[in-house]
């Protein structure tokens, strides 16, 4: 009886191993989107941030602490969307040109994985280590926090100044003696 059970188990295991000995190939999705854009970027800020988390357990039986410090670096560019400039925003009068530009905005955000580093990870008691999924959630919150606080850094002011300087040079090369650069109604964040 025991021998029969062992033979059955063995057969089952062989069948399973045959079916799973082939390495599963992941499908390669063919998903992409190509879009026409017209973005002028004139300022690039490299921002560092220490993301701090102290995960205190709410349940009484979860004895211990979980703390983590992650250092990340983000590259943020600011400028204007040239597609938002309409024909009527450019007014030429002789050798004077007046252009009304859209608000400066954050045009790109990148957080290179190479520059993400866990500085400290402290787990005590019965608590589990942070999984990669949890660390990704922490980084998502960090990214949100950077975008929320970026206006305090002066990036918009710099982008406005640099955009105006770039376009002034461009139009002066075309022969205009006077170049007037306006921006649309600024929002409070500037």
């Amino acid at each position, binding site marked *: 009886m025991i021998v029969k059970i062992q033979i059955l188990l063995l057969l089952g295991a062989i069948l399973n191993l045959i079916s799973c000995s082939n390495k599963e190939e992941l499908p390669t999705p063919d998903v992409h*989107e190509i879009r026409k854009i017209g973005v002028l970027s004139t*300022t690039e800020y490299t*921002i560092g941030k220490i993301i701090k988390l102290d995960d205190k357990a709410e349940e009484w039986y*979860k004895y211990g602490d979980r703390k983590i410090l992650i250092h990340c670096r983000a590259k943020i560019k600011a400028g204007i969307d040239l597609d938002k400039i309409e024909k009527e925003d450019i007014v030429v009068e002789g050798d004077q040109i007046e252009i009304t530009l859209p608000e400066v905005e954050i045009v790109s955000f990148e957080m290179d994985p*190479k520059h993400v580093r866990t500085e400290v990870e402290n787990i005590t008691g019965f608590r*589990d280590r942070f*999984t990669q999924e*949890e660390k990704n959630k922490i980084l998502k919150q960090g*990214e949100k926090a950077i975008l929320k606080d970026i206006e305090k850094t002066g990036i918009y002011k710099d982008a406005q100044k640099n955009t105006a300087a770039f376009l002034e040079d461009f139009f002066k090369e075309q022969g205009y003696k006077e170049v007037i650069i306006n921006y649309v109604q600024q929002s409070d964040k500037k």
Partner: protein
Amino acid sequence: MYSNRIKNRIRLAKNLLVLSAMVALVVIIWRTCSKEEESNFQIDDTPLHVESIRTIAEISTVSYKDQVVVDTVEYFKGDLNLYDPLEWERIYKRNIKRRLTLIIEGEVRYGLDLTKSIIKQKQSNDTVFLYLPEPVVLDVMVSPSKTEIFQETGTWSDIARVKLELKAKKLIQQNAEEVHLNEKAKKNLYSVFRKLIADDRKLIIHYE
């Protein structure tokens, strides 16, 4: 004698059952106590540190968005020993010891980098000539908000995750290069400059 043998086997089976039940109970209690629930943790408010500021001049005219799947698997080594109950886990896990699968969406931007070069212009009464550098890849953007951990079994180090993310970034850039977006970038650059040159003169762009 025969009945004694049967009695002993029954007693052995009962003891094994009780032992298995005790082990299972300890495991369940340990897992319950140490398992982290779907936590609503919130990071602390820490300041930003501006590490560098650069004045740049880039005109992006094509955006390529792509989504890639990257995966790393570790299999159990050696032959399966059916008589070892600790090895039965291999059958359940289809011989996969641990696996990390990420789905990452990225964006590649093509356009002009005028930070180190200038736009050379020549003009006549009816034509404007612009001499521009060739469009290049300006940005390959990935970020945590566009990264999904699809599957994570076993314990994985940060280095393993970073390796996968960099592999995804490289894949996205390779996919963008295969689609030859240079010509599209040039066509779109023409529309951008056509708008900026606010008169009826003809516009001719040369790429150097």
